[in-house]
Structures are given as C-alpha cells and as structure tokens.
C-alpha cells in the first residue's frame, strides 16, 4: 500500500516537474523565474493543510485520548514545518531577482515566518517534555492555540503590508492563462500526495518508536 502511494507520489512529482519547468510557458512580466511559483505556492498550501490536520488531530486527542491522533498531530506538524521552511526559502529565492532583495517583510513571507516559528515551538515543546502523555496533551493544546491564531496572523500582517501579489487562485475568474493554472494544479496534487506519503511514513515511525519503548 505504501509503495503504491510512494509510486503515485513520485509520478505526481515528476509530472509537476515536467509541467512547471517544461510545458508551462515563459511568463510575460517576470520571465522564467516565475516557475518557482510551482514550488512556492503548493508548499504554502501543504503547510496550511498540515496545520489544519494538526488542529483536528489535537482536538480528537484531547477528546478521545487516541494515541494515533497524537502521532498524527506530531507527524503533521513536522511535515508542516518542513513545507513552511520550504515556502520561505523558495519565496526568498524567488524574491531576489524579482524584487532585488533576499528578504522583504511582505504579507505572505511575514505570515509564513510567524507560522514557522509558532509550529517550530510546537515541536520544541514536544521535544522538551519527557512524560509522553503530558507532552501529547500540552502539544494538543498548543496545536489548537496555534491554529486559531492563523487567521489573526493572516489579517494583521495583511493590513500591515500590501506589497505581495494578491492571492491568485482565490479571485473569481481566472487571472492567469489556463496552462499555468494547469501546471499549478498538477503541482498542488503532487505536493498533497507527498504530504500524505510523508505523514503516513512518519506516523508509522512514531508508532514503532512507541512500541519500542513499551
């Protein structure tokens, strides 16, 4: 089952690569640098997905005390931090030739950076509590606080800065040529599959670790 998922994920990634680097056309205003978007935007999406899963899993854990929910929250947070970091890095690399600077405090980069530090703190908390059960409980509480904080972060940063491009996929009616949207969607799918693949492997590792300690 996992090898099937792995295979499909790999296929998706290759497809995304082909679409992003090859088939998608050279963008008008930014040139080929715009292709980084096929990495950057799906990464952000996966990060938000991951943190939403952390929220749900955290609530389930507190209500039902299912160890599996705790492991899911842990794994999802870790993968989420991974993709958040990737979002920041790709955003920065995209920004250098586009805006002339490695870093800028625009809305998306700032928001994602705050999320990065928040959930890094989540992982730190887990790492620093030795009691497994208490660690799970506290992490769940933090997971809930962090998730509810996301909209607050989003809006506060947005009102504070308006340099970044407006979110492209959210606007009604396509503002980008169809082939670019298609390439983006393929990468979205590929990254989502990768998320599922990573989380499933990570939860398995966590379960094996728990068994080893028993």
């Amino acid at each position, binding site marked *: 089952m996992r090898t099937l998922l792995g295979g499909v994920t790999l296929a998706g990634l290759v497809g995304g*690569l082909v679409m992003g*680097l090859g088939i998608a056309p050279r963008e008008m*205003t*930014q*040139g*080929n*640098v715009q*292709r*980084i978007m096929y*990495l*950057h935007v799906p*990464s952000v999406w996966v990060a938000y997905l991951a943190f939403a899963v952390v929220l749900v899993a955290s609530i389930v854990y507190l209500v*039902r*005390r*299912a*160890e*599996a929910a705790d492991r899911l929250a842990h794994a999802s947070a870790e993968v989420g931090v*991974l993709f958040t*970091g*990737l979002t920041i*890095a*790709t955003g920065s*690399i*995209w920004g*250098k*030739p586009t805006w002339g600077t490695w870093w800028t405090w625009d809305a998306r980069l700032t928001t994602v950076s705050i999320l990065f530090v928040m959930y890094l703190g989540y992982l730190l908390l887990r790492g620093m509590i030795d009691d497994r*059960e208490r660690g799970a409980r506290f992490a769940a509480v933090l997971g809930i606080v962090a998730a509810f904080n996301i909209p607050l972060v989003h809006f506060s940063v947005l009102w504070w800065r308006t340099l970044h491009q407006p979110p492209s996929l959210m606007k009604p009616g396509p503002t980008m040529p169809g082939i670019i949207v298609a390439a983006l969607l393929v990468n979205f799918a590929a990254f989502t599959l*990768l998320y599922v693949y*990573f989380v499933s*492997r*990570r939860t*398995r*590792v966590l*379960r*094996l*670790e*728990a*068994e*080893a300690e*028993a």
Partner: protein
Amino acid sequence: MTADNWSFVFAAYGLAAVVLATYWRFLVRREKELDDASVVRRQMRQESGRPEPQARASGHPSS
C-alpha cells in the same frame, strides 16, 4: 525581455529536491532501524516465552 535567471530557478528546485529527499531518507532509515529492532525483540521474546506488548491504538490508561 526580462533576464531569465535560470540559476535561481534551479537553485529553488534543487533546494526543494535536497530538503525533501533528505527528509525522505531520514524516514526510510528510521523505519528500517525500528523494524529491525522490533524483529530482534520478537525473536528474543519467543525464545524466552514472554508475551508481546501491544501498541496502544486507542484509549489511554489514566496516569
């Protein structure tokens, strides 16, 4: 026509590939370690006749 900056594109894709591949390798290696360890534990238990502990899938003993 704006400059193409392919080096940045490759830097970004390359970085993503390295990061994701590294994480994947971490997962695969850790899983193998733990799988091997659990096989060894199972063999030891069979030799001494002790019962196997179950991973707690749901519910939780109160502390």
